[in-house]
């Protein structure tokens, strides 16, 4: 059956991303928005858009019943959950299918299996997937956990079993930190994921984060779209991602991709998924987790393989065969994604807020800005601080880097402190240019990534720019936004 209308149960750039492909496929799109998001583009540019009201996330984007009610009322036949929010919520997937709506995602069974980090590793032991030495047991007493931790040997990593995004995660180097870390991971897990179950793993020194993009249909086809290198992280959250991974032999690349495909086949997976691996400096790799959704960083894969991963998701969801074969999928050139966050990297990556005066437009070829904001919109405290993703393709890695640095100067995000300048420092760092990436890149290069002191000439040009604007008060205050066509567009939605 062909999907005719999709409700996107998400916000920001990913809602717009799904909208774009749906439109390419002639599918109608319904979006939803919390009241504090009503001026953002995902609330403006769909065929239909419905308010989720106000309140906590559980009343808006996480309100399963409300989302399903709206889907039924507007006659949509499918729900795309995006990433985050309800994308890996087994109960929601079940509720959607029970209501006779297509869930554009994996089966609820796959979500359950891969959502539980302990359960997933147990299941994978049968498929011969390399796992890091660790303790994944059900006995969660402090005594057992401490005993197991010492058995594995320091350094170790303690993780909330249901965790993600770095929440409920602790690295322990010695006995004296152990108990506090176990208790900390447990309480964060309980708070963020309603489970205080933790697992312990050997901590790999200077590891790389390598992941493989998978896509499976319901006709037994399990394809990979090659790997992504996502080692550049702060607080366990990715900042820069790229593909192909630099400094990786073709042999190793194919091996790790094959391992990932075996996992998809082994659990009879459906739809888009990503297997994340920890790769040691010697090329040994270990399964970390499988994300049963579209990833934030999927565009780099799209740029290099030419595939539209959202289109594949939709085709699979309506029961079609994937339109390509493994041998058709090839990597061409290099793509880099920079995540633009509303944060101050020079003040411990603290989130920032404000109103965006001007976003700016990238002008080079093969540059994509996936952004959930418009000029004049507000960045608040209620949601993830990621403002946009700048995705740049180049014929080779050197060009992808130089084009990215140029493009970062074009997307200003004027008005809100962002990590834009910091991203330029990362991309310009010798070790990044040489492809020496590992997950401690940011903390290890902390001092070299500090802002360069402004020269006298820099200071003078900043003063000149300020002087030219402050002369005319028309720039200050709200007169500017009133004439903004996007903001005036919101009028009829209110």
């Amino acid at each position, binding site marked *: 059956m062909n999907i005719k209308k999709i409700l996107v149960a998400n916000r920001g750039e990913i809602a717009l991303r799904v909208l774009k492909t749906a439109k390419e496929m002639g599918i109608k799109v319904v979006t939803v928005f919390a009241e504090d998001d009503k001026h953002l583009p995902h609330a403006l540019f769909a065929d239909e858009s419905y308010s989720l009201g106000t309140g906590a996330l559980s009343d808006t984007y996480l309100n399963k019943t409300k989302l399903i009610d709206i889907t039924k009322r507007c006659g949509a036949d499918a729900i795309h959950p995006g990433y985050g929010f309800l994308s890996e919520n087994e109960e929601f997937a079940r509720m959607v299918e029970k209501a006779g709506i297509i869930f554009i995602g994996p089966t609820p069974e796959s979500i359950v299996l891969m959502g539980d980090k302990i359960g997933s590793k147990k299941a994978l032991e049968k498929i011969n997937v390399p796992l890091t030495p660790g303790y994944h047991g059900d006995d969660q007493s402090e005594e057992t956990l401490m005993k197991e931790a010492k058995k594995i040997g320091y350094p170790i990593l303690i993780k909330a079993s249901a965790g993600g995004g770095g929440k409920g995660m602790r690295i322990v180097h010695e006995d004296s930190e152990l108990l506090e870390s176990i208790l900390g991971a447990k309480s964060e897990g309980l708070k963020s994921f309603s489970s205080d179950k933790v697992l312990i793993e050997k901590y790999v020194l200077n590891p790389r984060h390598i992941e493989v993009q998978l896509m499976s249909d319901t006709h037994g086809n399990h394809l990979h779209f090659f790997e992504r290198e996502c080692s550049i992280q702060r607080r366990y959250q990715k900042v820069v991602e790229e593909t192909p991974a630099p400094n990786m032999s073709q042999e190793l690349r194919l091996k790790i991709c094959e391992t990932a495909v075996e996992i998809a086949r082994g659990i009879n997976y459906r739809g888009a998924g990503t297997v994340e691996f920890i790769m040691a400096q010697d090329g040994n790799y270990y399964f970390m987790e499988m994300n049963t959704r579209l990833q934030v960083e999927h565009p780099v894969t799209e740029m290099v393989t030419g595939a539209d991963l959202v289109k594949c998701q939709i085709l699979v969801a309506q029961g079609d065969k994937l339109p390509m074969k493994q041998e058709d999928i090839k990597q061409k050139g290099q793509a880099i994604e920079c995540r633009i966050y509303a944060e101050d990297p020079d003040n*411990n990556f603290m989130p920032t807020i404000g109103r965006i005066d001007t976003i700016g437009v990238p002008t080079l070829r093969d540059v994509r800005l996936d952004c959930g904001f418009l000029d004049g919109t507000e960045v608040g405290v209620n949601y*993830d601080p990621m403002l946009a993703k700048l995705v740049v393709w180049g014929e080779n890695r050197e060009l992808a880097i130089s084009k990215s640095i140029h493009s970062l100067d074009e997307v200003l995000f004027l008005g809100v402190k962002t990590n834009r300048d910091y991203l330029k420092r990362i991309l310009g760092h010798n070790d990044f240019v040489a492809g020496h990436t590992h997950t401690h890149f940011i903390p290890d290069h902390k001092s070299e990534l500090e802002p360069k002191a*402004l020269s006298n000439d820099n200071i003078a040009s900043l*003063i000149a*720019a300020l002087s*030219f604007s402050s002369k005319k008060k028309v720039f200050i205050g709200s007169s500017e936004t009133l004439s903004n066509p996007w903001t005036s567009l919101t009028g009829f939605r209110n």
Partner: protein
Amino acid sequence: MDKSFTINGKEIKVQDFKHQHDTVTFSFEGKTYFYSLISRDGHEMILDDKGGRFRAAVGTTSRDGETMVIAGGNEAILSDSGKKMKKAGAHAGGLASPMPGKIFKVLKEAGAEVKKGEAILILEAMKMEHSIRSDKDGKVKKIFFQVGQLVQGGVILAEVE
């Protein structure tokens, strides 16, 4: 005319500042600068410094007089009053919230002894927990908020003496 600016919290003094129509000239650290405005569109502009042209952009000025300015690839927070910016945490003995959020936990009571770096309370913002730590060895004088209260950024949350 002498004029002072604050750039990223640091005070900068310039001399012979003159702004006429589309030109600005001033001396800074012994060098004379001359800029002309080539074009302007909304917040963005093109300037010429006699040596070449560069792009610049100036944001909306906030209530406390701060403006985000981008010029030739450099980004900074400027104010032209010359007064020092209020920096979170810079208040004597006061620990300020680094951003807007909700008080998630109060770990120390008034009167408790604390060591430098020890967490006094936890602020929840952007779905993350941020420990507010003591900036010195001492005694907690006062906690100004209770669990569950919403606070603005830059507000003093606790005092240590």
